[in-house]
């Protein structure tokens, strides 16, 4: 009979027993509600072993790719290593390799992880400083294309982590990384699907990663990346993204600045501009990153414009306490 390894315990599956039932029988408390594969409360992650497809029905591709499964519907034939979904507390030691200004407020930070961290471009990571300060940053790098882990850090007024990274941290400084986390990444399998990538501020970081990852994996469908800024000084990676669109006929870069007119961008709210250009998002995959209010607003607009809920990946950059 198959066993489930969970939190250092070996639980042997009884006949006809689901992973949820098995872990409950062993005394663990696993969130659950409908016990029918619909509500997703019992979501867990397989860190090793084969997850039966029936246990992944209804999950997003990105969740399936990470080994997530519904424990109430999971009847494995072979041994499985299961973990709680929010318990990804594995820490990796990392070292600052370089810092480079991308504009007045945004810093490109490149880290070297001592043990290489597997990640999907666009996921995020928690930086844990030695004194206990923790903040989240999205990965801008693509493992096959870049050395090191790249992040874009905006200087937040009074921001402890961003202030430290901008003004004090030097190459060689160490911190721990926790993760990777998040669902905002490209999954192969539909190379002709049109992709809408929309973000503000350093929401550009994961979108830049996702676009390059998609192109690297041979995506042929149209990719439209919209970056919104309030003022022109908040734009960045302009030349890089322009070169990317010259190199790839299916990649399109749209720069929007809300409060200033100019020759190389559109003066508009980025979401209004995007939805004017693409009024129907039926069949599209949509990635939204950055300002939380905007992300939630565009999530709703994108859905009402025809995008399927399953195909909308919303990553709101929620501010920390300081």
């Amino acid at each position, binding site marked *: 009979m198959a066993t489930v390894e969970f939190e250092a315990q070996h639980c042997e599956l009884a006949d006809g027993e689901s992973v949820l039932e098995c872990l409950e029988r062993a005394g663990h408390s696993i969130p659950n509600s409908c016990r*029918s594969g619909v509500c*997703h409360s019992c979501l867990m992650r397989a860190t090793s072993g084969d997850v039966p497809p029936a246990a992944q029905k209804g999950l997003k591709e990105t969740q399936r790719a990470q080994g997530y499964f519904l424990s109430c519907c999971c009847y494995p034939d072979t041994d499985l290593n299961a973990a709680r979904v929010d318990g990804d507390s594995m820490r990796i030691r990392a070292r600052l390799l370089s810092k480079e200004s991308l504009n007045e407020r945004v810093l490109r930070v490149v880290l070297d992880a001592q043990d290489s961290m597997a990640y999907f471009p666009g996921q995020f990571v928690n930086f844990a400083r030695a004194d206990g300060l923790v903040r989240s940053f999205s990965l801008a790098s693509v493992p096959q294309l870049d050395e090191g882990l790249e992040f874009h850090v905006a200087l937040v007024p009074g921001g402890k982590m961003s202030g430290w990274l901008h003004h004090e941290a030097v190459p060689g400084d160490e911190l721990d990384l926790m993760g990777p986390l998040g669902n905002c990444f490209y999954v192969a399998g539909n190379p002709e699907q049109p992709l809408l990538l929309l973000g503000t501020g350093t929401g550009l970081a994961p979108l830049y990663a996702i676009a390059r990852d998609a192109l690297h994996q041979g995506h042929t469908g149209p990719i439209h990346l919209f970056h919104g800024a309030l003022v022109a000084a908040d734009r960045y990676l302009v030349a890089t993204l322009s070169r990317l669109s010259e190199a790839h006929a299916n990649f399109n870069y749209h720069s929007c600045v809300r409060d200033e007119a100019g020759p190389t961008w559109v003066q508009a709210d980025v979401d209004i501009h995007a939805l004017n250009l693409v009024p129907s998002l039926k069949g599209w995959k949509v990635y939204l990153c950055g300002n939380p209010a905007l992300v939630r607003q565009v*999530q709703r607009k994108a859905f009402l414009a025809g995008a399927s*809920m399953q195909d909308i990946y919303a990553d709101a950059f929620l501010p920390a306490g300081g």
Partner: protein
Amino acid sequence: MSGLYDGIGGEAAVNAAVDIFYRHVLLDDRIAHFFEGVDMERQAQKQKAFLTMAFGGPHNYTGLDMRKGHAHLVKQGLNDSHFDAVVEHLSTTLTELNVDQAYIDQVIAIAESTREDVLGRSSAPDEAAHV
């Protein structure tokens, strides 16, 4: 009841219906405000669970769950007119998906049977709602 669920098309039918149904609901000014500030993905999951139940599929809802789950909305003024609007959208969604009228009628009947619980009203003792 699995005759109904399988007849409509089971889980695939629920998946096809949920986006259509949820869009109708969000575009309806009579009821859209009840969904303000709600996490859309979580809400879509709840819609999926609701449709599964309404299609005669597997679920664990009791009358009490429906009552508790909607109590805060009842406080905000949820009433028969809102319930009617949602049932209307359920019907429209199934019609758009070319589901047989006989099945649609059965789905509407199931949805109807939750009215008293959803709206937090007491039912007659010999008609205690159990969904």
